[in-house]
């Protein structure tokens, strides 16, 4: 029996990238998949019995704010990566809006080191597109790439100047960096805090129109056509933007997108009595937007679902709705809510798992998100029958701000493996 070897037996392997959905064993050696099916001759490793459980690639989350450095009172890399591991997530892209901002190799390196030390999760720091996220000067993208950034973004600070937009796309493309964009026209958003529609009308909340998103998407689609640079849109919230994306993909433009899981369940109606846990950015939209986004997920126009994890301290949410900080602590609901989509018949299981694994992996160009021979053994083992009720106060994330408190969910992670090493176990085996 050698170290770093493991067999996972009798589980139902769901590996959408390789078209596999069957009960089959997998064998791990030195952090990689050694064999699927029969163990190689003489392979004698400890085993984990996964009978009745789903065995999937570890989940890849394209957007989770871990708050460190700069806002450790909200969360830390150690606290959030532990929460991620408990939720089956093995790779996280963390946006550059930390303090200091990820616009130097030093900050990127520091974040990677902290994650390595914590040991729960692979962290991919996202570099700033512009220095200080100020939207004026290019960041030192080549250096950021050397420090481990494979994507750049300007976080929540949309670039107002179209020329800077174009040049950052071209400069990033020079180094093969993927530009990720939260599409928003800040003038149209006009410091709103809710979808501009019936609910905001009634509650007197400053509105953010659909056009705040679609204008920005249209703008970038034109720049993609001009420059040929690859662009990924983050956290789409409107049906219209998803349709625009579908058309651009039909025209063979190199554009992809993700959606935050809460946008597939909640709508403006959930704001109800000014519930600050439903204050998110982009805002919760209409039921037809939610249905349109579900359709785009099903049809594969949107190929990734992310948590858009934003943990907060209690004070950040204890104020009148417009004065609260937007965001949901979402790591621990990413998988169970995605499985709920399957239970509701919105998508089939294999496609749902794909949107959390090979979908985001392909966007990033990563070898993870699949479990073929030689692939990194990042694995998530799920009990698909476990029915449980979310209790926010028992979440592992330091932020317990979630509108899903009290929801009944089905499907829960039992084990998470990072490079063949068990980093989380719900049950002792």
């Amino acid at each position, binding site marked *: 029996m050698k170290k770093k070897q493991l067999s996972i037996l009798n589980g139902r392997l769901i590996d959408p990238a390789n078209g596999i959905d069957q009960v089959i064993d997998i064998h791990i050696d030195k952090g990689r998949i050694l064999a699927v099916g029969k163990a190689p001759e003489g392979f004698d490793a400890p085993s984990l019995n996964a009978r009745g459980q789903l065995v999937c690639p570890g989940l890849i989350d394209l957007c989770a704010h871990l708050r460190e450095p700069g806002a450790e009172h909200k969360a830390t890399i150690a606290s959030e990566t532990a929460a991620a591991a408990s939720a089956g997530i093995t790779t996280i892209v963390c946006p550059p809006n930390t303090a200091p901002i990820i616009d130097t190799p030093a900050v990127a390196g520091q974040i990677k080191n902290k994650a390595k030390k914590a040991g729960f999760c692979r962290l991919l720091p996202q570099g700033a597109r512009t220095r200080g996220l100020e939207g004026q000067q290019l960041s030192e993208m080549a250096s950021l790439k050397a420090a481990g950034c494979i994507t750049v973004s300007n976080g929540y600070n949309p670039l107002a100047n179209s020329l800077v937009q174009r040049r950052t796309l071209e400069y990033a493309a020079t180094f093969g960096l993927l530009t990720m964009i939260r599409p928003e026209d800040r003038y149209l958003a006009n410091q709103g805090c809710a979808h501009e529609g019936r609910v905001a*009308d*009634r509650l007197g909340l400053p509105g953010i129109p659909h056009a705040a998103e679609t204008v920005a998407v249209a703008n970038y689609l034109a720049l993609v056509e001009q420059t040929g640079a690859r662009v990924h849109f983050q956290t789409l919230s409107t049906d219209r933007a998803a349709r625009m994306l579908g058309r651009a993909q039909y025209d063979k433009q190199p554009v992809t997108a993700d959606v935050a899981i809460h946008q597939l369940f909640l709508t403006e109606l959930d704001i109800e*009595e000014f519930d600050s846990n439903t204050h998110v950015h982009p805002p919760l939209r209409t039921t037809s937007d939610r249905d349109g986004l579900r359709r785009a997920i099903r049809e594969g126009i949107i190929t990734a679902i992310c948590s858009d994890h934003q943990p907060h301290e209690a004070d950040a949410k204890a*104020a*009148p*709705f417009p004065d609260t900080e937007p965001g949901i602590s979402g790591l621990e609901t990413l998988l169970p809510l995605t499985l709920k989509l399957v239970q509701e018949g919105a998508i089939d299981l294999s496609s749902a798992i794909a949107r959390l694994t090979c979908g985001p992996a392909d966007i990033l160009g990563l070898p993870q998100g699949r479990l073929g021979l030689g692939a990194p053994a990042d694995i998530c083992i799920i009990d698909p029958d476990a029915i449980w009720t979310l209790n926010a106060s028992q979440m592992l994330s330091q932020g317990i701000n979630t509108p899903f408190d009290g929801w009944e969910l089905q499907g829960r992670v039992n084990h998470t493996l990072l490079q063949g090493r068990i980093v989380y176990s719900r049950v002792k085996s």
Partner: protein
Amino acid sequence: MSQASQNLQLDKQGRLLHFLTIDGLQREMLTEILDTAEGFTGVSERTVKKVPLCRGKIVANLFFETSTRTRTTFELAAKRLSADVLNLNISASATSKGETLLDTLRNLEAMHVDMFVVRHASSGTAHFIAQHADPGVGVMNAGDGRHAHPTQAMLDMFTIRRHKGDFVGLRVAIVGDILHSRVARSQILALNTLGVTEVRVIAPQTLLPADARSLGVHVYHDLDEGIRDVDVIIMLRLQKERMRGALLPSEHEYFRLFGLTEERLAKADSGAIVMHPGPINRGVEMDSQVADGSKSVILQQVSYGIAVRMAVISMVIGSQNLQLQG
């Protein structure tokens, strides 16, 4: 949504615990407020302008936004009910020292305040305070952001009922900045609940909510057309800052298109009344002949404000007393 707001404002017997919004209140409740206010109108004319209904109670005025009319009429109303009144000028004290709203609330609760009268620039503040206040503490919404100003709406209803007798059959036009107006939102809800025939809003598209019709109104962009045959005209205050942010070109053009003049007023019903929540910008929303004319009931609105606020304060304190006994 309405169901939930009902729960927060009302106890299980349907009595008023807070007064946060008109949304979710039944016609009977609004009528009860108006009837109760009717009973208080005499108090102001007596030599001893006080009734002992709220003796020993403490009402705290928490105004995070400046106000003259609303704050003073709330203060007078509480005092005429024999309550003790604390006036806290919050914008100048606590928040500027970084204290959170919740901290301010907790500190005042430690002083055993029975009721908060709250005005704040953010929509939802009164709900927030009602959700976090100790049980047994009432919250009066004196205006929150663009959301609601229910006592203003009720004093407007009181004024309309005094002049028109009943709501059934009335056509009411609200003119001006509907988008940013908490007064208009509350008025529209109250008018529709009380059963008027028609509520019209008259404004350029830049001053209307995205889906104004969903509020239960007919939309007009032309003042002459919109006020034809109406019984009540409510003019809204135009904030000067609307000229910035490309909502309106100038006061001059606004007055030319949406300002009320004697000539235009003639198009309304001959018995029409003109209202305004104040303070008026003369020559912007209306000219002086209209503001001071025979159809204007603007000053009566102010004095009715005291009786209406006495009514809701006494109803909330009354529910508190019943809860204590129960």
